[in-house]
């Protein structure tokens, strides 16, 4: 009956309730949309970074992370390969050679990070193949090179053109190879595009005098959540001559950004909550002032303060529940629509590209997004009800009944 009474109480003044409901619905819808947008932003940044190069785990020689020279190749490629080949916790792996060098065309030169890969393996680890915008991915010829469109523009070369790659060999000499441009890629990260060019692994080994050695194993774990455990296991097995790094260690800046973004969402929740709370408090206080005599009556009948307090909280919770439904429908509907069509942020594409985000953002609606918004709304409503409820229970029956 207390629930019924609380429910009917909120409809005593329909106009006021509808206005306050409208404001909470808008708040809920904004939270859902913003949260879905931030989730999308973070997920897409994360996935682009993982997918373009980083992978989940990298195995290098100790010190390679800070000194990416050709001399820092893995001490025993076969040992590492034996460890990762049939490991059920590893979905895919790719051997790589990574070294800095120079690309020279007839017109220009550009510093570059050569990434020597075996295309059959690399295509399961990174997504460069999907980012080819002109030409094709590797077909197995020894002198193919895939570079970014941006680098091609710098070098003023196009598909089929020949360029010379140069890098320091393992012995300290200069190694060079002639390459033919077969594909141009364009990822969402302008910084990444400027730095990376892909060549076949065997050609890189030959050019740098590495024999069968490689610089790195890039791994994709079967389960992302298992990465910390897998990293520890591999590090333990390989010993201290190797550095086994998880994506979190490779991209500390990105992980900090993700953490900060999540924290800033909490801040946004609080701001939206504060914006709503005064409206709800005002509506509940008005409702209580209109019922002061009635509170006097129910107190004189014998209704305890705790029940009065709970009844007012129920009223706030009802406001919250109705708003949650309305906000989830409106906010969820808009978000779902944009999740399918994408939000075209071409006007901010350069800025987004520096964060590794494409010009079209797809908000990601999930149950977690809805639950977070629900939590914010319910907490706001409950907090908002405390002051009016305290006001109500501080009334004295006799004075309340005399109230005009």
């Amino acid at each position: 009956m207390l629930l019924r009474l609380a429910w009917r109480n909120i409809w005593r003044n329909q106009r006021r309730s509808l206005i306050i409901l409208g404001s909470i619905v808008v708040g809920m819808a904004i939270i859902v949309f913003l949260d879905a947008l931030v989730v999308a932003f973070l997920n897409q940044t994360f996935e682009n970074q993982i997918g373009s190069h980083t992978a989940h785990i990298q195995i290098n020689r100790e010190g390679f992370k800070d000194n990416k020279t050709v001399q820092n190749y893995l001490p025993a490629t076969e040992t590492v390969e034996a460890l990762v080949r049939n490991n059920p916790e590893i979905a895919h792996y790719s051997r790589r050679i990574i070294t800095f060098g120079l690309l020279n065309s007839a017109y220009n030169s550009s510093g570059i990070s050569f990434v020597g890969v075996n295309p059959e393996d690399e295509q399961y680890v990174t997504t460069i193949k999907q980012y080819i915008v002109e030409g094709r991915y590797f077909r197995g010829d020894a002198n193919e090179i895939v570079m970014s469109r941006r680098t091609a523009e710098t070098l003023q070369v196009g598909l089929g053109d020949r360029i010379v790659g140069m890098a320091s060999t393992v012995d300290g000499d200069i190694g060079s190879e002639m390459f033919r441009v077969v594909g141009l890629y364009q990822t969402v990260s302008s910084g990444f595009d400027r730095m990376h060019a892909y060549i076949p692994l065997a050609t890189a080994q030959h050019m740098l005098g590495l024999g069968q050695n490689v610089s790195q194993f890039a791994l994709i774990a079967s389960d992302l959540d298992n990465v910390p455990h897998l990293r520890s296991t591999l590090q333990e097995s390989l010993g201290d001559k190797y550095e086994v790094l998880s994506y979190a260690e490779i991209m500390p800046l990105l992980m900090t950004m993700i953490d900060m973004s999540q924290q800033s969402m909490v801040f946004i929740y609080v701001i939206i909550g504060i914006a709503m709370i005064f409206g709800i408090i005002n509506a509940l206080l008005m409702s209580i002032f209109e019922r002061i005599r009635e509170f006097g009556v129910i107190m004189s009948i014998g209704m305890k303060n705790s029940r009065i307090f709970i009844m007012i909280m129920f009223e706030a919770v009802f406001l919250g529940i109705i708003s949650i439904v309305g906000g989830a429908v409106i906010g969820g509907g808009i978000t779902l629509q944009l999740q399918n069509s994408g939000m075209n942020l071409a006007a901010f594409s350069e800025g987004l590209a520096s964060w590794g985000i494409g010009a079209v953002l797809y908000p990601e609606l999930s149950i977690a997004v809805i639950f977070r918004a629900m939590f914010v709304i319910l907490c706001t409503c409950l907090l908002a009800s405390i002051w009016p409820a305290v006001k109500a229970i501080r009334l004295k029956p006799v004075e309340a009944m005399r109230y005009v």
Partner: protein
Amino acid sequence: MEIIKTENLDKVYEDNGIPVQALKNVNFSVRKGDFTVLAGPSGSGKTTLLNLIGALDSPTAGKIFFEENDISKKKPRELSSLRLSKLGFIFQAYNLIPVLTAIENIEFAMMLTGISEKERRQRALDVMEELGIRELADKRPNEMSGGQQQRVAVARAIVNNPMVILADEPTANLDSKTGAVLLDIMERMNKEKNITFVFSSHDPQVIERGKRLVMLHDGMIESEKEQ
């Protein structure tokens, strides 16, 4: 047997910072089965006395005993329990909860005592039948006349079988005919069920029907007589 007894009861209000003596040295008792009327002019202290013996207010000085327990210093929570279990109230302005139907208003008092939904529905219907207001069960207060609302208020007051019902000017907002009907009902409850009633009123027909009349003047009991 005395249910309520006051000893040297004083009540002083502050009105804009000026102390107003509402009751002065009042010694009064309510016995089981009483049909007592507190009468007197406006400002004589009728409602104040009713509020004090109804555990709605606390005295400035003196004591109030309910079934021989001093309630003048009890905590609000204890007074709340006392009101819920032992007292029933009828107000001048009916004071039904506007968003509840008649039967829900009656059930509301029982809900507070924790009676099951099924039982309180049955008991509410029985009381409504007894008071001849069964057909009003699903009506909200704004769909009922003053007399009907006051009968629902009586039903709400008696449904928990209180020891005493305190009625503050119950007929003041009713025409004399409707007031008489209401008094008939309360008189019947008093006779048939031995429910104790204490009224505050200056309505002549209430004063006339009281078995005991207590006259108040300037916060003091001026006279007391059995009728």
